[in-house]
């Protein structure tokens, strides 16, 4: 059984009347054990809080336990003189305090952010025993991982005894009509009620078992409010689902569940019964002549989750699952010449592992979180360094105070207490103000990182306790050096004023300045690299022209119906007549959208094959529209290529297929799904997604029927909003039931970089904070140096030193320190920056610029910060300074 902290128990025992102690401690202990079933840390915290409450009640104290008046007055006196000392030196107290406030606030925000990111999916019961089946595909040329697996897997693995619960789901796409409103942007999935056995999302009303029956759906609380204006009394209400596999149907609300928390990797606003979806899929003619028993082992796209029993071996379960899957999949794998396997990915690890394909949310990388945590510690270190620097510098001028105290009989311990008390007061005050500051700034920071995490900051007992412990330890450490060195001064020296101008503590100060400069140079250099890479990616040549392009989304699921097709071509003809539109192209995919249609080429005559190639359907104008250069062969002609067996591929495909030049690939066959295609043209490589992704093999077929997914429009003016409205009214005229989605192509592309932009924003924010703290410290330090070197400079002036000579002399130290810091920081910055850049398929190369620029920035800011003080020193009138003695 756990027990409360010993120190507080001893403290309590010492103070409380011994007849009452047993009773009170017994009560507290009982309460503690009750609380600790939930959280040990919280129980500890509450115990300390309750126990400290007894200080108020003298009636419960030992008769002799009232503190002895001498000891009390020592504490009081120390406290009062600490406050006075801090007040007397407003500038330096202010600088130290400001540095500490900024430092604590930034560090708290960073730690809170990293903890939030690490808390993903840990709120489920037995989260440690829940896993996702993550799939690995392997063929001759590549290995890919995917978050989803086959439809049949969940049922097939039910025979494994260790699996307690399991679920799977499918992402679906449809629009919902509620009365006269149509909603399109819901995250929809199809699953069974076992989804709620594996994941702990509470059912607020209704029966979740209804989800296993047809025509019942479950929706989240927010969705309910979006649809009906309230989440009360809506069980049984009807909504219409439109365009679900081309069908429309009426369903009733069967259950409402609590919104899925932000710190879950899952997303679902609207849940449709999976069993019904499968019936629809079987009855509709979507899968040709494939037998259902065949289909379930070929239909991919089901994220599958399991929970294993307590004490069961994860590796064993993994083995069993793999042997089942390979048994069923064997015939298909042989035909595709691929291997695959499944590994169990703990659900708690999903969010902080670099994402695999088909993730539901962008993932974070644990390495980046560690980097941020490291920056958090850097910032704390900088703030404390400031504090130490300023207090040691100030200590010299306080030598006389120490002397007088010694004469009046104060011993070393009392003097040390005095300095420690000041440090403690500054730190705890800074911490309290920092928390207040975060409270005010919280909403703004949440805006930058787009995560609502500050709500639970103040309930996060673990973080608060450890931060406060850090503050206390930090304040003692940062107060220790001045405390020890000052209390060791000899009485005679202090009183004769010898120490006032001595250079004791300079070495320590120099080391600390080097620490500060190194951190700063490192951060600025890394920031420069990040910014450079970002602007490189944003301005890179994509190989495709996306200027002035408006993108309209059609409805692929209805594309095969003939009425839709004829309406579509009428719509296109009308569009071409609009005055603001220069060009038009239709296609199944466009640059900026992930191409999910990816098939394997098949072996012919036993040759090596099995290359995954993206497929897309386009019209004749596509390459002209996007300025994609044809480097061999010819483009499509609607007269010649109508049977869909002619293929244009990108250069990457020809390279992967082993052709030495694009010309050699012309007229060569490629087999997809048993049908032979012929390569008639090769286009230059372009970036389907951003330049952070390597170019992948991609192929094009001329097929305007299935190309109805996207309509790209080139507008004559760069401002597309006026034209967009005309297009929208035209669209609504032709397709009154379908929602209109029009987007500017550049924005579609920018969405690729959301993760990077967030990283850059956070990183810049933190680096600027670090730089600000460093500059603050420098201000404090130089103002002391002015007062210390007054006499030296005066003597030099009397002896005939020029202003310029003095200027060089005064700045030399900082220059040397900067140079040393540069040597320390740059190797670290180089290693980490190039590691980061390796994440990108296309990246900048690190050059001298990345190191020289930060150095110049740091030296310039040092120079500008100290300039005022330097000039003040040079302008000093020797007569006034020297006549004092």
């Amino acid at each position, binding site marked *: 059984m756990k027990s409360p902290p010993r120190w507080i128990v001893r403290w309590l025992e010492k103070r409380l009347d011994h007849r009452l102690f*047993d009773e009170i401690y017994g*009560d507290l202990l009982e309460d503690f054990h009750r609380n600790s079933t939930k959280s040990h840390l919280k129980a500890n915290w509450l115990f300390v809080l309750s126990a400290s409450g007894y200080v108020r009640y003298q009636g419960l104290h030992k008769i002799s336990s009232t503190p002895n008046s001498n000891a009390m007055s020592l504490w009081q006196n120390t406290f009062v003189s600490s406050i006075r000392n801090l007040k007397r030196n407003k500038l330096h107290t202010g600088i130290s305090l400001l540095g500490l406030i900024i430092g604590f606030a930034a560090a708290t925000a960073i730690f809170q952010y990293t903890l939030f990111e690490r808390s993903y999916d840990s709120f489920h019961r037995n989260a440690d025993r829940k896993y996702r089946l993550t799939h690995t595909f392997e063929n001759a040329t590549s290995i890919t991982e995917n978050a989803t697996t086959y439809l049949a897997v969940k049922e097939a693995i039910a025979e494994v005894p260790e699996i307690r619960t399991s679920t799977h789901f499918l992402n679906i796409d449809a629009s919902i009509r509620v009365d006269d409103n149509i909603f399109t942007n819901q995250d929809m999935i199809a699953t069974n009620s076992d989804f709620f056995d594996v994941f702990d999302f509470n059912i607020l009303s209704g029966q979740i078992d209804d989800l296993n029956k047809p025509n019942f759906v479950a929706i989240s609380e927010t969705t309910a409010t979006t649809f009906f204006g309230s989440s009360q009394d809506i069980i049984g209400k009807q909504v219409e689902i439109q365009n679900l596999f081309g069908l429309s149907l009426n369903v009733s609300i069967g259950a409402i569940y609590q919104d899925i928390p932000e710190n879950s990797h899952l997303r679902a606003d609207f849940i449709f019964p999976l069993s019904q979806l499968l019936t629809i899929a079987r009855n509709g003619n979507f899968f040709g002549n494939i037998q259902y028993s065949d289909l379930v082992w070929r239909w991919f796209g089901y994220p599958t989750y399991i929970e294993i029993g307590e004490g069961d071996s994860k590796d064993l379960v993994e083995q069993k699952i793999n042997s089942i899957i390979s048994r069923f999949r064997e015939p298909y794998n042989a035909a595709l010449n691929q291997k695959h396997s499944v590994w169990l990915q703990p659900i708690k690890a999903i969010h902080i592992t670099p994402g695999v394909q088909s993730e539901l949310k962008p993932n974070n990388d644990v390495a980046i979180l560690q980097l941020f945590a490291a920056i958090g510690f850097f910032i704390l270190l900088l703030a404390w360094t400031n504090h130490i620097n300023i207090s040691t510098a100030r200590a010299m001028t306080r030598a006389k105070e120490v002397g007088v105290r010694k004469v009046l009989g104060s011993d070393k311990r009392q003097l040390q207490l005095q300095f420690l008390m000041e440090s403690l007061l500054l730190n705890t005050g800074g911490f309290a103000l920092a928390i207040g500051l975060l409270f005010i700034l919280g909403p703004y920071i949440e805006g930058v990182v787009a995560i609502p995490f500050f709500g639970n900051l103040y309930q996060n007992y673990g973080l608060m306790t450890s931060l406060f412990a850090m503050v206390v330890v930090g304040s003692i450490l940062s107060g220790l050096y001045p405390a020890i060195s000052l209390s060791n001064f000899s009485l005679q020296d202090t009183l004769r004023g010898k120490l006032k101008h001595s250079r004791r503590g300079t070495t320590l100060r120099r080391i600390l300045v080097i620490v500060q400069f190194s951190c700063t140079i490192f951060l600025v250099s890394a920031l420069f690299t990040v910014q450079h890479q970002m602007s490189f990616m944003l301005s890179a040549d994509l190989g495709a022209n996306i200027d002035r392009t408006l993108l309209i989304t059609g409805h692929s699921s209805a594309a095969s119906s003939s009425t839709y097709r004829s309406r579509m071509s009428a719509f296109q003809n009308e569009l071409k007549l609009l005055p603001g539109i220069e060009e038009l192209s239709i296609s199944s995919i466009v640059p900026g959208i992930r191409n999910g249609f990816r098939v394997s080429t098949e072996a012919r005559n036993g040759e090596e094959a099995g290359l995954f190639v993206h497929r897309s359907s386009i019209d004749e104008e596509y390459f002209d529209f996007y300025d994609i250069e044809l480097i061999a062969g010819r483009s499509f002609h609607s007269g010649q290529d109508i049977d869909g067996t002619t293929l244009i591929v990108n250069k990457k495909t020809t390279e992967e297929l082993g052709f030495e030049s694009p010309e050699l690939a012309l007229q060569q066959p490629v087999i997809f799904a048993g049908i032979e295609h012929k390569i008639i043209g090769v286009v230059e490589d372009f970036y389907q997604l951003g330049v952070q992704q390597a170019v992948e093999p991609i192929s094009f077929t001329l097929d305007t029927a299935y190309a109805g997914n996207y309509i790209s429009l080139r507008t004559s003016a760069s401002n597309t909003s006026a034209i967009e409205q005309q297009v929208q009214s035209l669209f609504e005229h032709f397709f009154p039931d379908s929602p209109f989605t029009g987007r500017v192509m550049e924005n579609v592309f920018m969405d690729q970089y959301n993760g990077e932009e967030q990283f850059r924003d956070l990183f810049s924010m933190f680096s600027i904070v670090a730089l600000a703290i460093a500059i603050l410290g420098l201000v404090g330090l130089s103002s002391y140096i002015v007062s210390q070197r007054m006499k030296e400079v005066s003597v030099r002036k009397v002896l005939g030193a020029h202003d310029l000579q003095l200027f060089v002399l005064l700045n030399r130290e900082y220059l040397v320190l900067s140079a040393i810091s540069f040597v320390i920081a740059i190797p670290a910055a180089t290693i980490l920056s190039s590691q980061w850049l390796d994440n990108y398929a296309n990246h900048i190369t690190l050059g001298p610029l990345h190191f020289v620029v930060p150095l110049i920035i740091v030296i310039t800011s040092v120079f500008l910060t100290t300039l005022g003080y330097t000039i003040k020193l040079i302008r000093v009138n020797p007569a006034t300074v020297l006549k004092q003695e």
Partner: protein
Amino acid sequence: MKGTNLGELEELILLSVANLAEQAYGLAIRDFIKERCARSVSISTVHATIHRLEDKGYLTSRYDNSSAAERGGRPKLIFNISSAGREAIRVARDQRNNLWNTIPSLSFNIALT
């Protein structure tokens, strides 16, 4: 007579002890007040008050060792209300009832709107 009147918290605690009949010790009293009066009182306040009431003679106490296991071997101090205590809460109730009964009904109507 001056000095026998109860403070508000004292009254609350005496009533709780009377309610809890033979089960009243510090923690139980705190939880009872929290549950029934929706008011959270710190454990140290409860202890200070019950001992003050004991000193005044409104409560009597005895040790109970029956459930010492989860209390690290420490006994519970069970409180019971003494006849003086019973008298004190009765007086308090009478004083209040007396005042409530004479509120003119008009002021009620105004207070309720």
